[in-house]
């Protein structure tokens, strides 16, 4: 068992000529929640999207450095990207359920990964919706379209959808930024629950949220990982003046 769930070594990343990430070195331990904070355009989402190779889809991205998940170089030639994305789940900024039924949304990941056993799928779908704290609200309307759910319910459905394929690491890209405070609270409670079984990396703009849900916090500024440490340390006695200024609301 490797020590780190995620390990990033000397990562430089460019969009064309623009350097979006500068010499990033970072590790995350299993069963912890790490929050990425920083002003817009600081590279935190870009780094997050490295972990499931979502940046592959964007033209003009090139990088140097290494990214390991569970000790495996995810950019090695023999890596199956589809398989990697199955083990690294992702929840996006805006809820993006498929225009299908609630049930089919959660079953989708299983189906595309070749699962055809009906009972297994059904059990897994129900399990996942329960884990995502959505079961009581949707148990009577699994056949209904997911588009009929509220934004907060849709986002929890997206989390259920990610959980169904049993990822070991879950990436969340500002999962609550498009939601109202009550839905946000539910998502945060959920993250707290999920920590027992999963490693989570969450990008957030919301400082209080980072403080509430995370064990570790990493502060990004202009493509640099300025510092990262236990959340408590970052929020009470940061090393870098930029971190302090950001946390106390001087900019950003």
């Amino acid at each position, binding site marked *: 068992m490797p020590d780190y769930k995620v390990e990033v070594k000397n990562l430089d990343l460019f969009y064309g000529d623009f350097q979006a990430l500068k010499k990033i070195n970072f590790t995350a331990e299993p069963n912890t929640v790490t929050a990425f904070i920083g002003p817009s355009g600081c590279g935190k989402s870009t780094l997050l999207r490295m972990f499931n190779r979502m940046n592959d889809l964007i033209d003009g991205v090139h990088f140097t450095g290494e990214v390991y998940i569970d000790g495996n170089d995810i950019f090695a030639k023999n890596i199956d990207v589809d398989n990697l*994305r199955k083990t690294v789940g992702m929840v*996006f900024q805006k809820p993006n359920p*498929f225009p299908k039924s609630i049930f089919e949304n959660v079953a*989708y990941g299983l189906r*595309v*990964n070749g699962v055809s056993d009906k009972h297994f799928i059904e059990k897994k779908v129900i399990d996942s919706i329960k884990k995502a704290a959505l079961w009581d609200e949707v148990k009577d309307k699994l056949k209904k379209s997911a588009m009929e759910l509220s934004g907060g319910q849709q986002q929890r459905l*997206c989390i259920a959808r990610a959980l169904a394929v049993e990822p070991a690491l879950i990436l969340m890209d500002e999962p609550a930024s498009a939601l109202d405070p009550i839905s946000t609270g539910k998502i945060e409670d959920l993250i707290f629950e999920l920590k027992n079984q999963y490693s989570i990396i969450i990008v957030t703009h919301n400082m209080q949220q980072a403080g509430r849900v995370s064990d570790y916090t990493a502060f990004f500024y202009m493509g640099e990982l300025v510092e990262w440490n236990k959340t408590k340390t970052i929020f009470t006695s940061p090393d870098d003046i930029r971190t302090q200024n950001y946390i106390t609301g001087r900019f950003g």
Partner: protein
Amino acid sequence: MKPVKRIIEKTAKGVLFTSSMVTSVTVLLVVIFLFREGIGLFNQTSVEKHLVIAVNSANRVSALSSTEVKSIFNQDITNWKEVGGDDIEIAPKTIDDMASLFTEEELGEGFKNLAILIEKYVEENPGVIASIPESYLKKEFKGKLIPLKKISVREFLTGTEWIPTAHPAAVFGAWPLILGTLWVSLGAILLALPIGLITAIYMAEVAGQRLRNILKPVIELLSGIPSVVYGFFGLVVLVPLIQKLFKLDVGETALAGSIVLAIMALPTIITIAEDAIRTTPRALKEASLALGASHFQTLLKVTIPYAKSGIIAAIILGIGRAVGETMAVLMVTGNASVVPHTFLEPVRTIPATIAAELGEAPFGGTHFKALFALGIILFIMTFIFNTLVSTVKTRKP
């Protein structure tokens, strides 16, 4: 507001209002004109003007349809009992036949005796049927004049023969033309659909930005080529090729028309389908990929279902274009107005018929009106396709 400004505002409004009204009314008038002219067909017989059909006064047949008249004069019907009369052989006579029965002396100067001779001949021969110009009909004619049935809508739609120049009664059966139109369009869609969709998917999902920037304008350019050029290409390249390939007597077939139309419909299908596929939100595709779905699975299970209504609209618009296309089809399909059985036979489409025959149809005559009636059929066909497009487009995914 200053008065000058107000006047400008009012004038601008007036101009906009007038031009939009004039446009709408014009379009409406064209449709009304089409229907008025076309529907007039069903109010008349198909016998040429000033021509009457005369039989012996003992003949029991009271009315004939234009198809029956045509069959009689073609000698496909040879006995009166086939059309409900006595068992007597039919002797069809046109006015020329009549005139040649008699000598010049008998006819007299300027055919002045012809009317009397005709009456006499008709009365002496129980089986005769004669088509005579009204001017050669004697006053108080003793024979019987047979009224022709009016052309019925059913006869027009289901008749299998289109012979507008038949003498003395033209035959207007639009069925082979309707079928010809549908066959050629159907063939075009069968060819254009798979190719068009695959190209659209390739352009939207697989091709890189640079390739797409080259491909898309090129394909859009294709729709700007005049249809007569496509027709010419079809005539010079496709028709001989089909003739050789299938060892046919003539290469001008429904297949040639379908291929030319397919090439013409492709730009429409590709452009609209590609736009539809590209409207699938990136977030949905990323959600699918993030769950471990492959690019192809995502395409099949997320992208295409999302773009479904746009893709269907592309298909129907492609068909609509094919149905109404005239010139290219006219040039390569051979234009034989027979009910098609295979794609390797000549067919004739509605637009091609109208374009080819309108010049030789006397203004306001039966043939003229029959062509307008064809126009109505075409109008209804394209109207159905357009309605389908708008219903599909407004349906939420």
